[in-house]
Structures are given as C-alpha cells and as structure tokens.
C-alpha cells in the first residue's frame, strides 16, 4: 500500500522529486509506496504497479548488479 504526499516546489534549489519508474520529475503531489524493500516515489499508483510488474522483472537484476 502507498499514500499520496505533497512536495513544495521551491526556488532556492532544483526540484528533485523523481518517479522511480518513468524518471519524470513529479510536480507537487506524488505517490509514496514501498517497493523492492524500500519506500519509493512514483507519479501515481499505476506507475508503482508497473514498477513491480514491468521494471523489476526487466531491469531489477541489472540494477542490483551495478
């Protein structure tokens, strides 16, 4: 399970809230969910689901070896 969170878009430093699946900067509201043993930021619950159904099987092992 996850939850919606809000992040403030300030102007003193670059905004760095990034979706773990797609790589997009997520403006303002983001979805926080534990995946692969760690809390991770996503654009929305659909991207969290695709992280587990697509990204981990496709790239998870390569990433772990890095």
């Amino acid at each position, binding site marked *: 399970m996850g939850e919606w969170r809000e992040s403030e878009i300030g102007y003193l430093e*670059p*905004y760095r809230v990034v979706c773990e*699946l*797609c*790589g*997009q900067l997520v*403006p303002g509201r983001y979805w926080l969910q534990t995946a692969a043993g760690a809390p991770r930021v996503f654009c929305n619950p659909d*991207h969290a689901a695709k992280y587990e159904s697509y990204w981990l099987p*496709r790239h998870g092992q390569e990433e772990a070896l890095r």
Partner: protein
Amino acid sequence: MTPSRDTTAAVGLDPVTLTVLDNYLTSTCRDMGVTMMTTAYSPIFNESLDFSCVIFDPRGQMLAQAEFCPSQIGTIKFTVEWTIAELGLEAFEQGDVVIHNDPYRGSGHVPEHMLLRPVFWEGELVAFVANVAHMSEVGAKTPGGLSGDATEIFQEGLLIPPVKLRRRGEDVQDIWKMVLANHRTPRVTYGDFRAMMASLELAERRLHSLIADHGVDTFTAGGDELIAIAERRMRAEIEEIPDGVYFFEDAIEDDGIGEGSFPMKLELTIAGSEVIADFTGSARQAVGPVNAIYAVTASAIYNAFLHLTDSTIPRNEGCYRPFTIVAPRGTIVNCEFPAPVAGGNTETSPRITDMVFGALADAIPERVVASCGGTSSPFLFGGRNASGGEPYAHFHFEGVGWGGRHDSDGNDMIVTINGNCRNTPVEVFETRYPAFRIESYRLTADSGGPGTFRGGLGGERIFTVTVDEVTVGALLNRMRADPWGILGGGAGAHGGLWVRRGGNGEWRTFVEEFGTASPSKFSGVMLHDGDQVKILMPGGGGYGDPLERDRALIERDLHEGFVTIEAAREHYGYESEKEHSDG
C-alpha cells in the same frame, strides 16, 4: 477557486452533441492559431506557425487541440500540469494570464513560452486555455536562442517559472519589464506576447458562448466523455498491433562540444492496449544542447502513435493514457538540471519519433514510414539593422525529406515530423531580415533514399550576407549519419553546412573556417558583407526494395530531375528504352 462540480455526472449526452462539442473545441483551437498568425510581429508566428493552441479542464486534462506543432502539443500537457501544481488552483483569478518557459518545470525548451488563462463561468473555474509559441529571441548567449554550443541551460535564455504576466485583467508590469529587459528584440517579444494573449481572450469568449448555449454541465461532462472516447479508441488501435517487444537504436551524432555520438535505445513493449516505451541503456546526457527533457521524449512517443493510429480519434488527454515512457534520469532522453536542452526539442525529438516507426516496421509495415531527414536545421542569426539600429534576431529552420511509406514516396522538403511548421517564403525572409539575400533554394537530386517508394528529397539553400556584420549560429543534425530506410529501402542523403568567405573560393566547413568544435552546432560566429552560407537539408529514407519500384515512377523522377540517370542505374537497375533494346 477549486472546481466543486462532479464532472463525471451523467447528463445524457448524445453522440451528436458530443461531436458538436468536440468540433467546437477543436475549431476554437484553430481560431486561436489564426489570431496568433495574423496579429503577431515575428515571421516565426506569421509564416512559420511555430506555435500551438490547446484547451484544458480545471484538472489539467487536455480537452482539445488542433493541427499545430506535435512536439509542443505533447509537451504542453506537462507544462500545464506543472503550472497548476506549482501555483495551485486557488491562485487563479478571472483575467489572469500565466507565463512559463522553464524546461525543468515541464516546458519543451527555453524559447517555447506558454501562456495560460483560466476561464471562469459564474465564478467557477471551468477550463484553462493555453498556447505555446517559439519566441525568436530569448536572451540566450547567441541571437535567436538555440545556442549550438551551450553547456548549461542558463546559456539558452531567460528562464521563467510559472508567474502571472497579467493579474485580474491588468498587466503585471514588473514581469513585463524583467522579461523584455532580457530579450534582444523586446519590441518583437512584446508584439508576440500580445498576439498570444489575444488568442487566449478569443478562446475565453468562445468557451463562454459554448457554455451559454449548451450549459456548463454539458461542457464539463462532455469533456470527460470525449476523453474517455479518445482513450477507448486509442486503446483499440493499439490492440491491433501484435503484442511483442520491439527494439530500435539510433544516435545523435555530436553535441556541439566534444567528439562521439550519443546512442538512444528504445525497447517498445506492446501488451494488449498498453504501450511501454523504455529508453534504458541510452547514452548519458550530453554536455552540449542535444538533451531531451522528459516531456519532450514523451511528446515524441505520443507523436509517433498519433501518426500510426486513426486520425479521427478526438485529440485529447485520452490519447495519451495508454502510454508509459521509461526514461532514466541523467540520460540524453531525460537530462538533469542544468543540462542544456535546446536541440532536444528540435533534433532529438524527431529521431525518437522515427525510432518508433523503425521498431514497428516488421509488425505494421503498412503504417510506418522510413526515417525523415530528422533535423529542424536551426540556423540562428541576429544583429542590428543599419537604418535606425533596430535589433533583429531570427530562428530560421528548413524542411527535410520525409521517409517513404507503403504506398507512396516521402514528402519533399517538409519541416521535420515534430514541427508541422511552414518555411518562411524567400520574399518575406528578405524583407524582414535584409541582412541576407537568398541566392538559391532548391530540391537536391538523389537525396531521397532509394526504395519501392523512395524517400522525399532534401534541399539546398544559399544565403549571402548583405550587411557589415551579422552573428550566426547553428544546431543541425544528420550531417554525418544518413536517414535510414526500412524494409529493404536505402538511406537518404545526409545534410551539410558550409561557409564561403566573401563569396569566393571553396566552400569550407565552419570547423575549417572558424575552428568551431562541431561542423553544425555552434554559436556566436561573425559573418560579414559578401560571405555566403550553404545549408544542405537531408533527404528521407526509402521504403522497400528499390528494384521493385515502378518503372513509370523512375521515369517521372528522371523527367522531373529528382533522380539522376546515374542513380537510377545504380539503385534501381534502370535501363532506358534504347539501352534495353540494345542489350
């Protein structure tokens, strides 16, 4: 004011009403564009039409667009989403206009400025109308922006986060002053911004008229229904593509700074009605300005599928929902701040779109096209007019050959697939920018890749400088790598860029003449009276085996001068009637 209406409420909309609504919104977008075209100051608006006009609902969902610039239309979805997230819906008031061009906040690249106006009905926020347009001068390190050798975004012009250019119907003078003080041609910027604002005012009036006639419930529920229809239809189209994982790889040949190319890898998964476009494994972001930000990469994918699918699907938010774009941070397809990004939107974007066609060539051969010339051919220049010292600056772009397709040759010299813009007529160009005279402008024989259906032709233009001095820059690609063919078709010809000092002697590259790092990506080169520049625009790739080309088409090409007899013999095995009878 936050919208309180239940926009999903069923109000019993019939297909006729929905069609009327969709066409009304689309034609409103078109009329917004006409307003900009006819009232702006710069030829990039009046002639080139480098702008787009779009309508959104209060949640930032795109309701309608028209036949504008595909890269802008896909990107503005992110720009508007960011604007609403950063400002909050509560910040919008009747008569506001927000301006925004920051690529690290969802814009495409620095020259593209978005103006957004909230539309209220009886005190309730019911829509946003927006346009995005390429300003010809943005205060970059070189006139005309698009600095071919920029190494950070701060060299690409003034960054404007979402701020109000107009508040409750009154200009915010501080913002106007700040922006115009940073542009080399403030008078032109002023006129173009006014044209964009007029376009938004027209759209607001049109929406008010629509709501007055049909009611706000029809408008809001109809918008939701049109989005749902578009999503269903797009998903149905995707389901017709065979499920599978498809690959394609291409590269940006240089970044204007160093040696070496930048590979882009696409793994395209089609699974039922879903598409995942995964760029994992693509090159790290470049030092120079060929990086695409996420919104540009996503927009290029949308553009490809809008070309591949039924053109009658309502063009709105629903079209984009089936797509997931995976673009790792720090790569050439999703760079990190403060990497420069100007060419990501002009050069990298069309290559990404073409990569989708390349990946799906075997799966849906009747729908894809071979590679287009793949460069916007940006040639930038600026200076001061001799009479009166009025500053000028311009982003000049060119057409390219488009790829051959299953039933016809590629288009000749059409602006690359991300642009859908027009070229600037020679007469207008010379009138508005007397720094140059156009010596010649023509199609280039044999530049279209051979094929059953050959690639479209590229072209050549020669400029002569007619003033004491003018500063020029460039940001062209496909100067070394040929546009690829598909399904047995051959590659189109690559482009080129040369200079001839004083109009005499040999054509030389800018590397040879001025020591630039790249032959086609540089800025701040000073040319003088009599100097000449030659731009060669790439052709498109061919489709299918050239030996299967219809003899009548070969002879038409020979008659028109599109293909030389030597190329016809070499690529098509052509023999004239006499050769045939002698042989």
